[in-house]
């Protein structure tokens, strides 16, 4: 049996965090939750997830900063990052588009679309 894939979800809204992680668990993934920006990077290093789902508007450290840090770290660079954003209206578009995520989704989103994106981004399971 192939090991469960681990996904780290970072969102400051408790309901979204709870429901999304429930859905992912039901989908067969292992879930790590984070509600605060400053914890995410440490948590990523510690738990080594296969994919990270980041909300943009996190307290203390914003999603874009975290994404940059992940991608700057050679040990973590390979981890795919999906950025969720409720609104980037306050930011200039160049800033938004410059964030080096592997994919992005605006809230509210279709869960089936998110699941599909996750599937596409996760590396193929090794045989055997």
């Amino acid at each position, binding site marked *: 049996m192939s090991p469960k894939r681990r996904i780290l979800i970072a969102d400051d*809204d408790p*309901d*979204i965090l709870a*429901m*999304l992680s*429930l*859905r992912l668990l*039901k*989908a067969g993934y292992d879930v790590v939750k984070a509600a605060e920006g400053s914890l995410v990077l440490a948590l990523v290093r510690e738990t080594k997830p296969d994919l990270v789902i980041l909300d943009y*508007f996190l307290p203390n450290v914003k999603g874009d900063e975290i994404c940059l840090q992940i991608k700057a770290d050679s040990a973590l660079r390979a981890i795919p990052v999906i950025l969720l954003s*409720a*609104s980037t*209206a*306050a930011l*200039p*578009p160049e800033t938004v588009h410059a964030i080096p995520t592997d994919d992005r989704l*605006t*809230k*509210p*989103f*279709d*869960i*089936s679309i998110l699941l599909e994106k996750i599937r596409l981004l996760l590396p193929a399971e090794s045989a055997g």
Partner: protein
Amino acid sequence: MRFDKDSLWYPGIGFAVAGLLLAFGQRALNRYSQGMQRSALWVEHTYDVIRTIESLSSAVSRASANRRAYQITGEPSYILEHRHSAADAHSALAALRDLTRDSAFQQKNVLRLEDLVGARLSVMDDLLKAQARGGLDPRKSASLMARARTLDTRIHGLLTSMTRYEEGVLQLRAEEGQIGYRRTRILQYALTMASGLIILVILLRLSKEIADRQKKELDLRNSTVLMEVVIEGSSDSVFVKDAESRYLMMNTSGAKMIGRPLDGIIGKTDSELFSPETFARLKASDQEIIQSGRPKVYEYSVALPAGTKTFQSSKAPYRDPQGKIVGVIGIARDVTAQKAAEEKLQEAAQIKADFAAMVSHELRTPLTAIKLVIDMIVDRTLGPVNEEQNSALVTAQRSIDRLSRLINETLDFQKLESGKMEFRVSEADVNRLVQEVVISFEPVAKGRSITLLTNVAKDLPKVRCDKDKITQVVTNLLSNALKFTAGPITVSTAMDGSDVRVSVKDSGPGVSPEDQTRLFQSFVQLEGTRSIQGGTGLGLAISKKIIERHDGKIGIQSKVGDGATFFFTLPVDRSA
């Protein structure tokens, strides 16, 4: 009132000519009067000659008479008288000779007269001598008498002809004098009238010029007064500075703006009126105007006793009549209030933008959670769901989607309104874009048994546009069409002049002309749409703004009962 030398040349010449004419006239008159004088002298002379002739004649007669008297009476006194008379005759002759010196003709006559008179007197002498000797032989005396008579006749004839000659000459002179007089008078009148006319014309023109100049001066004074009224009446500051930024002139409003009396400003420079920083800025802008020779508008924040105020100052070069720049003219306006208002507006706009962003974020977050939950239940992740439950939840999903769209559209609309919507332009294949949207709607259309047809033009040129936004517009039009109709919908592309045209034609109830004008306004929904799928009323308004930002046009062609064709155009050669 001054006259410049240019305007004085012609009256000068005119007067000179008139003067010359008068001088000629006067000269003619002088010559005439000189002529008159000469004539008078001639007349006198002629009468002198005539009188002398007469006195000669009378002297000779008296000499003869005295001789005869002596002959008869023998009185010696008669001989004395005779001698007196003879002497008179000689002096008369001498006088005549003298008088007729200028006439060769008369001189000849006088010479002959001398001979004749001399001969007559000698006859008298002979007779006297004979008488003194005791009597004369009657025959001798008879021949002497005869000779005397002949001589008398000839003398008399000569004297007469000489007199007539003199009278003739006199007559001639008189006639000449008359003609000369007439001519002179005519000339004099002509010249006087000519010069009079010239003077009159000059005077008329001069008086007209004086009147013109007076009017011009009056007009100038009036327009000067008007200018002064305008400058003084302006609520803006109007001022003039020289090249050293010294105030030459300022109106009352300007003095009030600075907060000083006018006499405390005129003649002073900005260094004496404002702080060093303000002075430096004002001087710099004055110098810029003087160097460049071009007008410019400046804005300054100045600390005044009444508080810090912002001024907008339009400055221009002040040129002297030769065109050399000698200072600066300016109009300054207190825009403090306006600037404050502008800042408030900008603040408000920023608040609005921030608010919209915040609100949409706040609204989207719980909506995300709700959607996650409902979707999760509907896709049976949390266990079985019965038919009823499923139906209910699907309804909830629709509302969630609608709410989500509403939030998106509101935010889009706000961004477009405030100009903060970013457009990412690239080359787009319109046909492909349109076909993608149609494909995405196929499930919905199939579910409602509506036929979607596409009719794309071949060889449609690529268009530079924001693909996402144009897709949004096509989606909006197609979704509207699906709301309005149960029949076929045709999406087509074509060339329209130099534009690419996309049309969505439905077979619905159509839109009346009155409704057509309201369609693209925000929050307008037409009858019959709310019941079906519900719109936000912003879709078309947003589409319109997007198309207009692309320099395109959006519109509708429709007749009630005959469906509607919504279309938009995008220019092909658009310099993005």
